[in-house]
């Protein structure tokens, strides 16, 4: 982490690009591979993460002076699980059609390393407003990664986008299978690192 405090806009940008959860930090890969075989799923999970990440960062930041450092981890877990449970219950009650589609992904968020990591690294040490911006940026970065990965996987694997067929047949069936998820994430991660090194003078993921 840099020593100089960053402005809120910089924090959001940092979450989206500089420390992008998937492409730069390489965390939360498991759920992201599981759901990115269609754009609809990817976007739904991305939006849920934006919300949970922002709320968790805000709550942890509000409580940061009260939490004893030795027991911060069980407390982070409770806050994350609490938000996920509440959203899960509310959606199951008041938004049943959407819940049927993305209910599974809401519950998956409990196991997200990225949310936990930001609570630990950022929200527990910074002011509320900065933490909200950081969480929002991290969430957006995750959403962005979901969109890019699921775009390629659905297009190549099913020849469709958002469930609407673009080309007939299934051109590369492997892309929507789990193996294709690893391929897509690996290749895209390499591609973004190459862009960063080639055009922005970055050091790649290992240098972050």
């Amino acid at each position, binding site marked *: 982490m840099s020593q100089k405090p960053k402005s809120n806009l910089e924090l959001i940008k940092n979450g989206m690009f500089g420390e992008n959860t998937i492409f730069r930090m390489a965390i939360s890969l498991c759920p992201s591979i599981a*759901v990115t*075989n*269609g754009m609809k*799923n990817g976007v739904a999970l991305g939006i849920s993460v934006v919300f949970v990440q922002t709320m968790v960062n805000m709550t942890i930041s509000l*409580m940061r002076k*009260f*939490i*004893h450092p*030795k*027991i911060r981890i*069980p*407390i982070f877990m*409770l*806050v994350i699980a*609490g938000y996920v*449970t*509440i959203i899960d*219950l*509310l959606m*199951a*009650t*008041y938004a*049943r059609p959407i819940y049927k589609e993305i209910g*599974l992904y809401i519950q998956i968020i409990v196991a997200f390393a990225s949310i936990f990591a930001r609570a630990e690294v950022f929200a527990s040490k910074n002011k509320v407003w900065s933490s909200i911006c950081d969480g929002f940026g991290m969430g957006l970065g995750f959403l962005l990664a979901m969109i890019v990965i699921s775009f390629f996987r*659905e297009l190549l*694997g*099913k020849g469709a986008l958002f469930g609407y067929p673009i080309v007939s047949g*299934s051109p590369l*069936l492997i892309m*929507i*299978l789990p193996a294709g998820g690893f391929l897509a994430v690996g290749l895209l991660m390499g591609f973004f690192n190459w862009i960063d090194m080639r055009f922005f003078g970055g050091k790649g993921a290992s240098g972050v």
Partner: protein
Amino acid sequence: MTGKDMIKITINLVVIYVIGGLIMAFVYAKTSPIMFVKAKEEKEAALKLMMPEADKIASLGAWEPHERHAEYYAALKCGELKTVSIKDEKTGAMKEEKECIDPQDIGYIVEGYGKGYSSFIHILASVDKEFVVKKISILAHGETPGLGDEIQKDYFLNQFEGKTVDTLEVIKGETPDKIQAITGATISSRAVTEDGVKNGVILLKEKLSKEVQG
């Protein structure tokens, strides 16, 4: 760790977990009755959809495919629908209710589960009096998105109309009288067809022909 730390840690954990627990309990208490009612309504609507021409759907009994609770129903068509006015005892308002006279079985509906690739697929199937499948629908499943979830698509579901116990069989590739497997999702197709619907129809046959004889 000093004594002061220990006290602080205890207070920390107790306060935060109690607050968290209370919030979750409150949300659960508020939402669960509504959720229950909505789930019931959805099931009734799904049953009605299986047999739109029926006036009434009555449960006949339950069975346990894959150790899960499932029911089977008779779809009834009324010989005559009589509208009667009933006085509601609480409010005193007059309420109209339909009374079913001389109901006739026009078919049966069975709820079932099929063991799929990554989940148990929850299925409803309706048959006519000769146990020929009329319609099936998938209530819930957790199959692979993009592959196994094709079982919900109409092109797969529509194949079931007119199938009997003998023709409920999955074939890879084109088939004139059986069920064609979904490309890349043979296990899910089999689960729906053979484990779910076929077993359901067999159950209906067993239970109902016994009733007729006895």
